[in-house]
Structures are given as structure tokens and as C-alpha cells.
């Protein structure tokens, strides 16, 4: 592959474009509402009307407004059709011909939900056909990889990423450039690049959407990273629960190999890079990087103490770069537009954009990408449309089982790493669950603790035993059988588990309890029973078995 050949593919693809494009969402959300049937009906209607020369029906990735799917966007008319069915699909074609078109429903593509978005990671999502590499190349795909390999030194790439201020999108927000340079500097006969696509937080589906909608962006980002750190082998660790993402990645890897964009001597340079898929098997802890590496090696996914960090000793004890899907998807755009452009978006400490999965008790559920520092209120009220049926938003849960609940009173908080941490929550990978007045906070805490009990790998005692004890206490509280003493014990346990667990799972397991206690303590206290007086305590204790 050469630059000329790449440009030729792009030119051919653009030339074959038809006057009207109907973009039909083929991501998992819309697929579950039969968007495949809609696509087939559109294809048939176009053929029946003899409009095959002027209308293209394109399968695309996520168009963001998942609650209204299946979605079909008509260009250049800028009409977004929602809740399309195989029966109403022919009406879309009829409408394009100016005929009577019954049964069509629309969403406003100029509403706040769309207008306030800024797409970098999702720029191709809903635009390119994720199963055709030509479609990605037509959107300037693989140009950044070519320019990197032919015109930049690895150190220059790392400097560019450092300068951009990009921080890891997996949750902790570690500066990407610093991680890359550590891997580059670490001595090792072989180095690896791993893409963490084990999106296990309940309520998060950003990475799934990126993989389903724009898999080549992730491959390109990984290849650039591999060149920068000196790796020649990559792995994508993706959860088994995402079959569509797995199949699209497989297709993308095969296509990239066929065009020589993966493999040996990429773009006639001495750089070789292979990517293999590793399918997870349903263990939340494998999102933790050392557990993930154990799983890639085919072992039980249990974490190990750090240091040594993976950047020094990772997969098979070799220096390993692990980044999240969204982090890799940011790489090619940064190199195409420059570090300064990226650094001009966002806040002082958090650059660029962040993709959030908006779900729960909110009008518009789906995917949004906004500049870092956007106030939470803009996200849930203007873009999300607030709670449905006139309800009131009570809290927003971010960061999944490692995060916390931000109360409505703090909705003006800008969304960036530091501001969320100050409120006792975390940015996390980007799941955002809106809760209304009908949700009771001790229930939420109990729900997440149950999750942690199930998912604790059992290696370290604070997490294995501590989460079980905390769950028992929370169940006692929810069942109105607990006293103030139990609540104190719960808080002590939170402190102990947080400070003594081996990995992030245990260290953050108390977060949902602590953050709901911080802002909604009265809800816990309302459920408490009066303390048993000292004289009868000995008798009372014999019945108290929940915690023992």
C-alpha cells in the first residue's frame, strides 16, 4: 500500500457516491428493533422504484438516539426518521419522490441532543459503513498511520500525544503520552499493545458502539501506538457479550490485512504489526489491566500487585501498553489535526471530548460526545430532555460500580476528571445513569454491592470477604432491621476495603455506598431501628445473625 493507492481508493469511493444517501443504523440497539429488516425493505423499495442510480442505502453505526430506533437518516434532506419499521420503510422512498408518505415519524436533527455534541471519537459513527474499509478510507482513514510511519520518528509521535493532553478514557485518566513513553523506554525483547474492550460497567455502552460503528479507527490508533512504543503484536480483549462488535472487528482486521495496512512492511516501511482478538468470558475483574493480561495469557483473570506496572512488565513479562477503546479512537484524529487543535478543546486538566452513554430515567437515551467540562446539567437537561413523564431528576450515577451518585443539587458541576472526583464519584468509562425520585439510594448501594460480591475474583481477602459483609449490612438496612451501630460498622468496613484491597475492583467497591451516604444519608437513617438498650443487648445479639 502506498499513499497514492490509498488516495485512489478514497477517490473511487467518493465517485461512486449517489445523490441521495439513506443511512440506516446497524448498531446493536437498533438491530434489536429489526433495523436489518428496515434495511432490506429500503433496498427493495429503492429497487422497485428503479432509483438504484440515485439512492444509496448505507449500513452505518450508531446514530446516538438509541431510544427512538431504528433510525434512518436521509441526506442531503437532513431528515432523521425514527421508529422506522419494515412496513413504513417504503414510505421514506415515497417521500423522497414527493409522493404521499404515511406512517413516518421524525426527530429534529437540530435539537439540543444533536447540536450540543462535538464528535471526534464518534465522527465516523453513523456515517461510514463499519463493514467496508473503503468507507473508512474515504473519511481519511489510515492517512494518519501512513504519515506517521513515513514521516515521523516514534519519539515525535509520543511528543505529539503528550502535547495533546490526552488522558486515558478507561476511567483513571492517566496521561496517555506518559504511559506511551514509559513503554517506549522500557527494555524488552518484545513489546505488546493491548486494547481494553472489556467494557464491564453496567450502564456503559460507549466502547461497544465505537467498535460496532468504526472498528478501523481503533485498529489505526493501535497501529500508531505500536509504532510509537516499538511493539509488533497487538491484542484486543473484547467481551463475549458483544457478538456484533467481535464480528465487525474480525471483518475489519481481515480487510486491513488484505490491503497491507496490518501485517509486515506496512506502507513500505520496516514496521510490522499484527492484531489478534481475545474474547472475554464474563468476568468484570478482567477490565483491571493486570487481570486482563492474565486472561489474555489464557489464565484465570486475577489481578496482581502493581508495581511492576504493565508498561514495564506486562504480558508475558514484557513491556505492554494497555489503553481503552476510546483512547485509541482519539489517536488518528489527534495526528490528523494536530495536538494543538485537540488541546484547545476541553478544560485545563481534561482535554478533548468524552463519550457518555446516557440511560436510565431520562427522555433521550443514547450516546453523546461532548467537550470535557460540559456541565452535567446541559447533558441531562438540555440534551437528555430531563426525566420522563414530568418526573424530577434525583441523581446521576457515573462510573458504574466504582463510581458514585451525584445529587441534582450538583448538576452544575462541569464534567471532567477532577470535578467528578471532588464529588466522590469518578469519570469512569462514561456510563451515566439518571435516577428520579422513585429510586431509593440504599437500594442502589445494595445493587452495586451485590454486583461486587458476584464479581470479586476472590484473590484478596478484604474484597472477597469485605464485600460480602457490606452486602449483608446493606440488606439489613434495606430490610429495616439495622441500627445505627450497623451503619457505623458499614462505614468502617468501607474504609478498610478501600484501603487494603489488591486491585481497583475492591478499592472502589465502597464508592457507591460512600457517595450515597455523603449526599443521601437521611435515606439510610430513615430505615434504621432504635438501638437496643445495653441491658437487653446480650439477649438481642443472639438473634442478630445477618453479619455473622
Amino acid at each position, binding site marked *: 500500500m502506498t499513499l497514492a493507492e490509498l488516495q485512489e481508493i478514497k477517490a473511487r469511493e467518493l465517485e461512486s457516491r449517489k445523490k441521495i444517501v439513506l443511512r440506516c443504523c446497524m448498531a*446493536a*440497539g437498533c*438491530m*434489536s*428493533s429489526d433495523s436489518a429488516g428496515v434495511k432490506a425493505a429500503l433496498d427493495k423499495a429503492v429497487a422497485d422504484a428503479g432509483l438504484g442510480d440515485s439512492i444509496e442505502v448505507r449500513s452505518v453505526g450508531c446514530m446516538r438516539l*438509541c*431510544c427512538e*430506533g431504528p433510525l434512518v437518516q436521509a441526506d442531503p434532506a437532513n431528515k432523521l426518521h425514527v421508529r422506522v419499521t419494515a412496513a413504513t420503510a417504503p414510505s421514506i422512498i415515497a417521500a423522497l419522490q414527493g409522493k404521499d408518505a404515511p406512517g413516518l415519524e421524525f426527530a429534529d436533527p437540530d435539537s439540543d441532543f444533536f447540536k450540543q455534541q462535538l464528535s471526534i471519537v464518534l465522527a465516523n459513527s453513523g456515517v461510514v459503513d463499519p463493514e467496508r474499509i473503503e468507507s473508512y478510507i474515504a473519511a481519511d482513514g489510515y492517512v494518519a498511520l501512513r504519515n506517521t510511519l513515513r514521516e515521523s520518528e516514534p519519539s515525535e509521535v509520543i511528543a505529539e500525544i503528550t502535547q495533546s493532553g490526552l488522558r486515558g478514557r478507561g476511567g483513571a485518566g492517566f496521561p496517555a503520552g506518559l504511559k506511551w513513553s514509559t513503554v517506549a523506554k522500557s527494555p524488552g525483547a518484545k513489546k505488546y499493545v493491548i486494547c481494553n474492550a472489556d*467494557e*464491564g*460497567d*453496567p*450502564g*456503559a*455502552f460507549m466502547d*461497544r458502539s465505537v467498535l460496532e460503528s468504526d472498528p478501523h479507527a481503533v485498529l489505526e490508533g493501535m497501529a500508531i501506538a505500536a509504532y510509537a512504543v516499538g511493539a509488533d503484536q497487538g491484542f484486543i480483549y473484547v467481551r*463475549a*457479550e*458483544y*457478538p456484533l462488535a467481535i464480528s465487525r472487528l474480525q471483518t475489519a482486521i481481515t480487510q486491513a490485512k488484505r490491503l497491507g495496512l496490518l501485517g509486515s512492511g506496512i506502507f513500505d516501511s520496516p514496521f510490522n504489526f499484527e492484531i489478534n482478538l*481475545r*474474547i*472475554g*468470558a*464474563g*468476568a*468484570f475483574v478482567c477490565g483491571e489491566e493486570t487481570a486482563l493480561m492474565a*486472561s*489474555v*495469557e*489464557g*489464565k*484465570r*483473570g486475577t489481578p496482581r500487585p502493581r508495581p511492576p506496572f504493565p508498561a514495564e512488565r506486562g504480558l508475558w513479562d514484557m513491556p505492554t501498553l494497555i489503553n481503552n477503546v476510546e483512547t485509541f479512537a482519539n489517536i488518528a484524529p489527534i495526528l490528523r489535526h494536530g495536538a494543538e487543535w485537540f488541546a484547545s478543546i476541553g478544560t485545563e486538566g481534561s482535554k478533548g471530548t468524552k463519550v457518555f*452513554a*446516557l*440511560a*436510565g*430515567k431520562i427522555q433521550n*437515551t*443514547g*450516546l453523546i460526545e461532548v467537550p470535557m467540562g460540559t456541565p452535567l446539567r446541559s447533558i441531562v437537561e438540555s440534551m437528555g430532555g430531563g426525566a420522563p413523564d414530568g418526573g424530577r431528576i434525583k441523581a446521576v*450515577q457515573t462510573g*458504574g460500580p466504582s463510581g458514585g451518585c451525584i445529587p441534582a443539587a450538583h448538576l452544575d458541576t462541569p464534567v471532567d476528571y477532577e470535578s467528578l472526583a471532588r464529588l466522590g464519584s469518578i469519570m469512569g468509562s462514561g*456510563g451515566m*445513569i439518571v*435516577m428520579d425520585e422513585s*429510586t431509593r439510594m440504599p437500594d442502589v448501594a445494595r*445493587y*452495586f454491592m451485590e*454486583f461486587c460480591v*458476584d*464479581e470479586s*475474583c476472590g484473590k484478596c481477602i478484604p474484597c472477597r470477604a469485605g464485600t460480602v459483609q457490606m452486602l449483608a449490612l446493606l440488606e439489613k438496612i434495606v430490610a429495616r432491621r439495622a441500627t445505627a451501630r450497623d451503619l457505623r460498622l458499614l462505614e468502617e468496613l468501607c474504609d478498610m476495603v478501600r484501603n487494603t484491597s489488591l486491585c481497583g475492583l475492591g478499592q472502589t467497591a465502597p464508592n457507591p455506598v460512600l457517595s450515597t451516604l455523603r449526599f443521601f444519608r437521611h435515606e439510610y437513617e430513615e430505615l434504621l431501628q432504635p438501638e437496643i438498650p445495653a441491658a437487653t443487648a446480650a439477649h438481642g445479639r443472639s438473634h442478630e445473625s445477618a453479619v455473622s
Partner: protein
Amino acid sequence: MREQTGSDKRYRILEAHIKKHRARQDALIEVLHKAQELFGYLDDNTLRYVAWKLKLPPSRVSGVATFYHYFKLKAQGAHTCVVCLGTACYVKGADEVLASVERTTGVKAGGTTADGKVSLFTARCIGACGIAPAVVFDGVVAPRQTAGTASERIQTWVKS
């Protein structure tokens, strides 16, 4: 080992898959995925066969198979129903959906009906939060379920 597996075609497919991975020990999880796809679940014979082919101690294979939730060690029903209990589904009433399918099938999550028709599971999040609550019927995600719609679907299986 060889005698037991000789007549079963599925072992030959599994062997080909193992060869594709050049019998690398780090491909254990990939091999177990394939075995579960072929046999529906992983029984002791299958695990011993995988251990033998990858030259791994059976304890290691068993340790991995029991660690991951995705691997099933018992035979499954003819149909499977997975109720997602992710946070978005949970705040939108997934617990009621689960209770209703548990009533309809008469088994708790993780169980299989006595006639072997339906296996019931829960999931921690299938990433379909935009269309919550979601239920996976025989591998196909169904959006916006209620106690009524989910039980109706199960009824059609029970009757068939």
C-alpha cells in the same frame, strides 16, 4: 481419551480449532469458547480432552472454566432467556421482568425447567442500556420489555 472421542464429529472440529491456534496454551479460553459452542456446555470429558490437547494440567483447565461466568458446566435448556440486570435496566424495572419470567418458568435465575425446555439467566449488563429493560431470548436482544411481554414470549416456548 482417543477411544471416547473417536466417533464424535464435534471433537474433530474442536481439534481443528486447536490446531488453528497451534495448540498454544494461552489459547485456552478461545478453545473453551469453541468447545462450548460445539457441545452447548463444558463437561468433565470435554475439559479433560482440552487439557490433553493443550498439554495443560486438568486442574488449570478446570480452574479457568469455573472462573469465568460465561462458561456453563451443566447442560442448558432448549431455549435460553437472559434478563439483563444492568443499572439502566434495573432502574427501569428489570427486577419485575425477572420476577415474572421466574413465575412463568417456575425456576430461579441460573436454573433450567424440569422438562429441559427453558434455561433462565441474568446478565450484569449487555450494553443495550438505550433500550432498557432488555432481555435476550435465544441470543436475540429484545428491547423495552415488561413483565407481560417477557412472560408471553416464554409462554410460547413452554407450549411448543
